[in-house]
Each structure stands twice: as C-alpha cells, then as structure tokens.
C-alpha cells in the first residue's frame, strides 16, 4: 500500500479582498514507502501549497476545496485537531522554507526539543532534563551539530545551524514522511550544498519517505529518486530523477526548463529562457496552462486540459508528447 495517496486535490486562496486564486488543481499523486520524491516548480506552480496541504498546515485564506490526502490509508483532511496531533509522532513532519525563523527566539534549543518530546510522550515515558539532553545530543549529532548547541538560543546560531536544528526537531518524533519545503533556499550558496548532503544521507540511513519541494531542478535531480514537475497547480510530468535529464519523453515545459540550466565550465555556454508570461492562476481556462508559452502547442492544447498519461515508468500530461490513445489502459481521468 502506498504511504501517501493524494486524490483529486484542489486548493485555492480566497483572500478577503482580491481575486480568488486556484493554486493546486485536480492533483493525484501516490508515494511508496521509502521513496525520495522531488517536486519542482517555479513560483505560482503550487508546490509549496501542496506541501502544506499534505501536512495539513494550510491556513486561511487557503482553502482545500475538494480531494483527499490519505496517509497510510487515513484521510488526514478529515482528522480532528487531537487526532492530527497524534499523527505527528511516527507520522508526518514538515521542514519549512524559512528555517531561520522556525525556532522560538526566547526559548533555548533544549527547551524547544523538550516541548516536542513532552507533547508526544507515551505512557511510561518521562522526559526530564537529562533524558531530553541525551536525546538532544543524539539528534544533533545526526544533523552534524555539537550537543553544546542545546544550551544556545536561536539568535546565537548561524542560518545553516538553525536549519539543521529545525531538521533535528522535525525528526525527533521519528516521522515516516517528511516534507522539506525549500529547505536551503534562504541559506548561503556554500551552506546550501552541505545541508542538502545531510538531508540526503539522513533519508538514506533512516529510510523515511521524503518529499523535497524546490524551485531548483538541479537540487532535486541530485537528491531524489523520482521527480514531479508542477506547472500552474498541476503535475505535468512524473518520472525517475535519473531519466529527467536524458532524452526520452518529456513535457515541453520540462524540456524548456532544462535549457535554463548549463554548466559554467563548458566551452560554450548557452542559456535559454521560456518566453511569454507565467500563468495567471486567477483565471480558469480550458486547455493546457503551458500552451500559450509552448512552441509545440496545437489546437487541442487550447481546448482540453491534458491528463497524466503513463508510459512505463513515466507519466506526462501533454497532448502532443503523449496523446491519449483510445487503447491506453492506465489513463487517469482528471476531474473538471
């Protein structure tokens, strides 16, 4: 059984003033235990909204309009507050984009760790000062920090250290699924790489299922087993990370995006951009959202929203690259 199944998820923002924006549209995703999945997308692709929806951390004006998020079979969108809280131990965890501000500025690290552990202590468990410190030392060494950090306050730590502490806190409850939402974006370039290395090795050694949400294709391809490409609230491509960069069947958006990267060491460096304007999420239109920027678009692309079509290990939602043949069996129906 998949550890996480998302079915027909629709999330929109309904601000008090201003236009309604649908951020995630008709999304179906299924994750197997132990997978490391990357979700790539640019601003407005709905990737962060999705990450918050999976961990049920969305707040108004974001509203889940329809769909289900099933974690180990239970739809977490239907849980009550205390049921959801119980899910956190051995369940779902979230590491935020701005790890810099994810720690309470007036509490020392060991106290904040104690808060988490005590909130989920089971019968027979006692989290006294020494127990918290012992566990804290373990967790911190896991993220390559000295246990001396326990006595520090957040403002005494560097950005990279803070993000490591946040990861340690998130992992303290032995979660089975961890969502990393742009975990290194706010950090300095060189620190970014080392924090990503830590995340990678933790995922491998501890075997939790992980979702890495990032705007950076290279980070995702480097770290993950499987990559989902999002555009305008939909997954347009889903395939093993190994084959994303290679030739084969791809969504035109993925192809165009790949051309925006290059190796600065190469003899000839050519960078391309994607013309046109990014999609306007406040407008509901028929057809593929990428069609206006797509050089392969044909008539049908403007009329019908393509659904993800499977071909062996990969899935692509494109009328041109992977047209729905009447014979195909594994066609998912996209609700409208």
């Amino acid at each position, binding site marked *: 059984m998949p550890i996480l199944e998302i079915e027909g998820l629709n999330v929109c923002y309904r601000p008090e003033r201003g236009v309604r924006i649908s951020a995630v549209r008709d999304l179906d995703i299924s994750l197997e235990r132990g997978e490391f999945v990357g979700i790539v997308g640019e601003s407005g692709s709905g990737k962060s909204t999705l990450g918050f929806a999976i961990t049920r951390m969305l707040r108004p004006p974001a509203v889940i309009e329809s769909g289900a998020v099933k974690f180990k079979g239970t739809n977490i969108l239907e849980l009550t507050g205390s049921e959801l809280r119980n899910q*956190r131990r051995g369940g779902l965890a979230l590491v935020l984009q701005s790890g810099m501000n994810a720690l*309470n500025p*007036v509490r020392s690290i060991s106290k904040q760790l104690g808060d988490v552990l*005590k909130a989920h202590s089971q019968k027979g468990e006692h989290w006294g000062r020494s127990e918290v410190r012992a566990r804290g030392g373990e967790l911190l060494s896991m993220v390559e920090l000295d246990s001396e950090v326990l006595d520090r306050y957040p403002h005494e730590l560097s950005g990279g250290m803070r993000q490591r502490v946040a990861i340690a806190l998130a992992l303290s*409850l032995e979660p089975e699924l961890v969502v990393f939402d742009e975990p290194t974006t706010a950090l300095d370039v060189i620190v970014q790489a080392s924090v990503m290395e830590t995340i990678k090795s933790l995922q491998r050694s501890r075997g939790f299922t992980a979702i890495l949400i990032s705007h950076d294709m290279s980070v995702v391809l480097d770290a993950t087993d499987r990559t989902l490409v999002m555009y305008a609230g939909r997954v347009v491509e889903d395939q093993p990370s190994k084959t994303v960069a290679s030739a084969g069947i791809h969504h035109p958006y993925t192809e165009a995006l790949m051309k925006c990267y290059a190796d600065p060491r190469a003899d000839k460096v050519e960078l391309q951009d994607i013309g046109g304007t990014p999609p306007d999420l406040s407008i509901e239109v028929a057809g593929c959202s990428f069609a206006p920027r797509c050089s392969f678009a044909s008539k049908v692309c403007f009329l019908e929203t393509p659904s993800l079509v499977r071909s062996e290990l990969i899935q692509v939602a494109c009328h041109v690259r992977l047209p729905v043949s009447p014979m195909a069996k594994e066609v998912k129906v996209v609700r409208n």
Partner: protein
Amino acid sequence: MRYFVRKVGMFFVTIWAAVTLNFVVPRLMPGSPVQATLMRLAASGQVVTNATKRAIEIQLGLPHTSLLIQYGDYLLNIFRFRFGMTYSITDESVSRAIMAAAPWTLVLVGTTTVLAFLVGTMLGVYAGWKRQSRVDSIVTVGSTVFSAFPPFFLGLLLLYFMGFKYHWLPLTGGYTPGLTPSLSLSFLGNAFIHSILPAITLIITSLAGWVLGMRNNMINTLGEDYVLFGEANGLRDKTIAFLYVARNALLPNVTSFGLALGSVIGGSVLVESIFGYPGVGSLLLTAVNNRDYPLMQTIFLMITVSMLVTIFVADLLYGLLDPRVRQ
C-alpha cells in the same frame, strides 16, 4: 550586559533632561512667577523667611543672577529636597505636603497599574488565541468602548450609581472624616473601601489599552514561522498558546508598561479630584487653583521622576525576558 549598561546610562541622562526641563519651563513663561508667588505667600498670612524666598527664586527664576548660577543652585536644592513653602496649606513646606499625599497615590496608582496590566494582558491573550470567538468579540467591543471613556466620566458614572444611587460605597475622601491616619487594621480597611471606586475607574480605563494591544500582538505572533513549525511538530495547544505565542507577544507590552503609566497618572489626577482622594493628583489641582507654582512645579518633577524609575524597571525586566538583548 551591554544592554543593561546602556539602559542605566539612558536612565540617568533622561533624569537629568527631565530635571533640566523642569528648570527651563517656568523661565520660559510670560509674567513673573516669582513675584506672583511671593505676593501670594505674603497674602496667605505666612511669614516669608529668607530661606523660603531663596528657594522659590531658585526654583522659578531669579531676575538678577546668571542662568548658570541659578541652575547650579537649583540642582543643589533638589539634592537637599528643598523646594520652599507652599501657600496652599498653612505652615507647610512643599516636601512635607507631597510626602503626606504621595503614599495614597503610590498605592492607588501602583496597584491599579499592575492589576490592569495583568488582567488586561490575560484577557488579550485569551481574545487573541480564541480569535473571532464570542468571548473575543465581547472583550474587544467592550475594550474599544471603554477606551473611548474619559476617566472622569467613568468616575462620575460609578460615583452616581455605586455611591449616590445605591449607597454601596462611600462617595468621597480617602477615609471616613474624623479617623486619624494610622497603620491600624481598622483604618487600612476603611481606606481600602474608600479606594475601591477610584481604583475601579482607573483599572477599567487603562485595561482597554492592554487588552487591545495584547490581542494585536497575539495575532501578529500567531503568523510567525516558529508558531507554524510548533504546530507542525504537534506541540500541545497550551504550550503553543503560552510559551510560543503569548511569551513573544508579551515583549512589546512590557516596553509600553512604563509609558502607559503616564496615562494612569493623568487619569488619577482626574479621579482623585472627583472622589476627593487625598493624593498627589488632588494636591496638584489645589496648587493649580491657587497658582501655587512651587508646589505645582515640584509635583510635576516628582511625577516625572517616578515614571522614569518605573520605565527603567520595565526596561530591566525586558532584558530578563528577551535573550536577544542580554549580551
């Protein structure tokens, strides 16, 4: 440490500035406060000794000496607590008049400020945490309406209903006339009953600010990432409400504690006058009505200095509450 050193430094500089301002103000004023004071003092039938005359001249401005000498004498007199004679009360020096009134106001303003802060902050925490609940709207609307009340109007209303109409509480004074002030239990009880109405008036009028301020801070803090992350880690609601949100939301309220004192003192002047309470506020109004400049001037200085001391204490407290400023 640096924080504390800076605060101590600022405290003394501000005290100096306030004392100097008190020196400058009467000298900027039109007319001759000294002449007026001396004439009134004579008219009140008191013997104007040379020492009294000199004290008044030093305080309000001597026409013939240089400002620098006046300033030096002024500072010296403040250190010796010599503020001259008042003509509002027969045969009484300014310092003694203030000393007699100060405890009344100190107790009244002190307890009401602390009570209002505690109760208001707690209400604000609750309203902000249970935002848009019934309790929140009742608390918010109530605070909003009461923050529009001038203290004296609220005092008059309470006086009318509690004292005049239903005779639940004494109408006026700090104690029943005829009693001799002492520290006996019966006198303190009597004084307590007399202070209920003024205290309630002051608490209600200053409560509103704390409630609304704390509610705003709570709502702002609720949007912080560390609150979100705490929720994602499944912390208990109480832990998040008190240790994560309220604890951080409290910080700005502590800084405004000292400043709020100013409005409570202003309110106490009005309330004391309505209830005939024998405190510094009533004394200030007596001084104003008699144009008793030495008394007025000294009371103002005392009020300012005690405010500065409170603000200083609040600043030190802030340093203990916020680890970020401790180094």
